[in-house]
């Protein structure tokens, strides 16, 4: 019960402070992350096609970040 109260207290503290987890990488420090070469999917038209190529030839599927439609490609 004591643990439950502590959890509740922690939750209330978080609420009162607006859950103010301070961003440890400030917006003005994100120059490198904003560079197009840092995008996980720089060219969606190309990566969607390549995902489809692998999907049709491999048993594994999913968790690629895209959402392709169905086909009878196998």
């Amino acid at each position, binding site marked *: 019960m004591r643990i439950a109260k502590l959890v509740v207290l922690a939750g209330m503290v978080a609420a009162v402070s607006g859950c103010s987890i301070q961003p440890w990488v400030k917006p003005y420090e994100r120059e490198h992350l904003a560079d197009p070469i840092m995008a996980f999917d720089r060219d969606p038209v*190309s990566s969607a096609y390549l995902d489809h190529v692998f999907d049709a*030839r491999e048993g594994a599927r999913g968790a690629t970040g895209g959402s392709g439609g169905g086909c009878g490609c196998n």
Partner: protein
Amino acid sequence: MTRMTTSRIVHFLKGQPGKLLALALLACAALGHGGAARAGVLAEDRADALYHRYQGGGVEIQGPSVLVRKKIGENFAVNANYYMDFVTSASIDVKLSASEYKEQRTQKSLGFEYLHGKTTYTANVISSKESDYVADTATFGLSQDMFGDLTTISMGYRRGWNHVYRNIKDADGNKARDPTFAEQMDTRAYTVGISQILTRNMIASLNVEAITDQGYLNSPYRSVRYVEPGDPRGFALQREIYPRTHTSNATAGALKYYLPWRAAIEGYYRYYSDSWGVKASTVDLTYTHPAWRRWIFDGRLRYYTQDQADFYSDLFPRQNYANFLARDKELASYTGYTIGFGASYEFSIPWAPRWIQKSTLNARLDHILIDYDNFRDATKTDPGNGVLAGGEPLYKLNANVFQLFLSVWF
């Protein structure tokens, strides 16, 4: 009225630390990430026109893909994709139990995005048509930026309705749909993901997807082979039989790092398992290197390995050996290697309209090699020269995947 409401809330929460915590978290969401939050942004307006070509294993597939996305105001965006495959197939499966065929697949998709504060809602409809397979898909998703935009969480749902048909040759030898065969297959997929800024040079992502299929899951054309001593080749063929359900789970993590000389390196790993007994791992490494102001080069190494499905065999001991029978090489045990290179050149056209902000011309070539551990080239059976059924050389697939595309930002 206020006192009454407060009293009700206190009564509701009395002795309920779980409810109190839930309320605290809701308040947290409202205070920290709703009211005071800055709005997110939608991706840039962009159009891509791509030509793709796959060649390998007796199969050639080529065609165009056009993708356009456009913002409407600051909160709405729409995207549309038109994709075509022109297929000529004389694959090893086709050579064993069917005849070479030509096919055309057309896929169209339309998507909407709506940005509200830090939340982006997405909806897509996708329609894919070929002469013996029609697939309609709908997706819904949302993503939420939080913790000072260091973290983005996302979740999605996909529903697919597929109609499977079979082509035969009519009396004149032309391709026609078999009127006696029509099956269905439904798909549901659930995804959750998180993207996290770790340092000023590093970002990570984690995605989990569960997919479940129900209905007709095998190919209406493919056969399995079984030992038949009376046949000159030593084997005979029968139609494959799959379970009518298939559930899979995939978990993928990626880490991307910005290198000091303005380049990026990415590592990706995915673990996959399904209810058919297939387990697979994918490792993908990508290096991106800008050069000479206008060029960006990409290099990629990809490794893939999987264990076979429980009901897969290259050669079954006899006809109707088990309830489920498969000889799909995608369900065999094998290892695949991919090496790829890409180049992107940014250019400007002096007479181009002002609304075009940036243009790139991109080319990419990937070579795929797959070494099968237990899928043999059954077209090479030759008992007269000592190559018996089950003793043929193991199959290898070598394929080249080429892409050429033009991208315009406007």
